[in-house]
């Protein structure tokens, strides 16, 4: 990413969560901070957004998770950084088709964290019927 260099200080736990999220989504901390700050600037000083009920920007609604539960009242709130932190894993990367001929233990793990993807679920079901689960 090109741009001007700036040093920011993040809380250690927040930094750890951002790095974890970056590993999932193949985004750098810089990219995530950039998108979060841009989203915040877009609000132009508006009050905090309402609880997430449908979508948060381009991200699908977050799944139930320890992170969401930590919001306190059970309803996660969209803040600039929570958009980056709460988005479901892998939502940015396209899903790969299930390769043919994998051993059953590998097939079961393939895309296991993308279980909500109907195409992949269908492929896994078809493969299971072909090769036996």
């Amino acid at each position, binding site marked *: 990413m090109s741009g001007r260099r700036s040093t920011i200080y993040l809380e250690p736990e927040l930094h750890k969560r951002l790095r*974890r999220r970056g*590993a*999932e989504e*193949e985004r750098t901390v810089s990219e995530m901070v950039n998108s979060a700050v841009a989203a915040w600037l877009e609000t132009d000083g508006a009050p905090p957004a309402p609880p997430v009920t449908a979508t948060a920007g381009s991200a699908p609604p977050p*799944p*139930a*998770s*320890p*992170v969401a539960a930590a919001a306190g009242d059970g309803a996660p709130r969209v803040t600039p950084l929570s958009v980056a932190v709460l988005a*479901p*894993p*892998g939502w940015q*990367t*396209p*899903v*790969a*088709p*299930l*390769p043919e*001929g*994998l*051993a059953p*233990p*590998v097939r*079961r*793990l*393939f*895309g*296991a*964290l*993308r*279980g909500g*993807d109907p195409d*992949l679920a269908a492929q896994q079901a078809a493969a299971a019927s072909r090769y036996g689960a």
Partner: protein
Amino acid sequence: MILLAPDVILDVLLARAPHAEPAARLLDRVVRGDLEATMSAGTAALAWQVAERAVGTQAARGLVEQLLALVPVTPLGGTTLLEALAAPIADADAALLHATAIAATAGTIVTREPRQFEGSTRAIRSPAEVLATLPG
């Protein structure tokens, strides 16, 4: 013996195109006994954390158990941490993986982020590169 870095494991679990296929094929060769593989405790922990958020607590535990059945973890102890601190590798995560590879006597670290491992004494290969070295 190879050490699978977290990006390779997550490529499989998240079916991330276009990287998931070679990663899954490599894991398949491990399952079939064509080569030995290990992963770091940190990699397993990361997979667990990501899984908890994606599929919930119970399912995540099941998935991590399945993963551990396929790829054993090399323990991370004080000696390994000291090795990581002394490693000529700038990135802390990469230094830990490098030290774990040494502890596991793994000659190769499998990742698609080779730049992180500059200075490593292990061979750094992508899943596709490792697959290319295997017969059949």
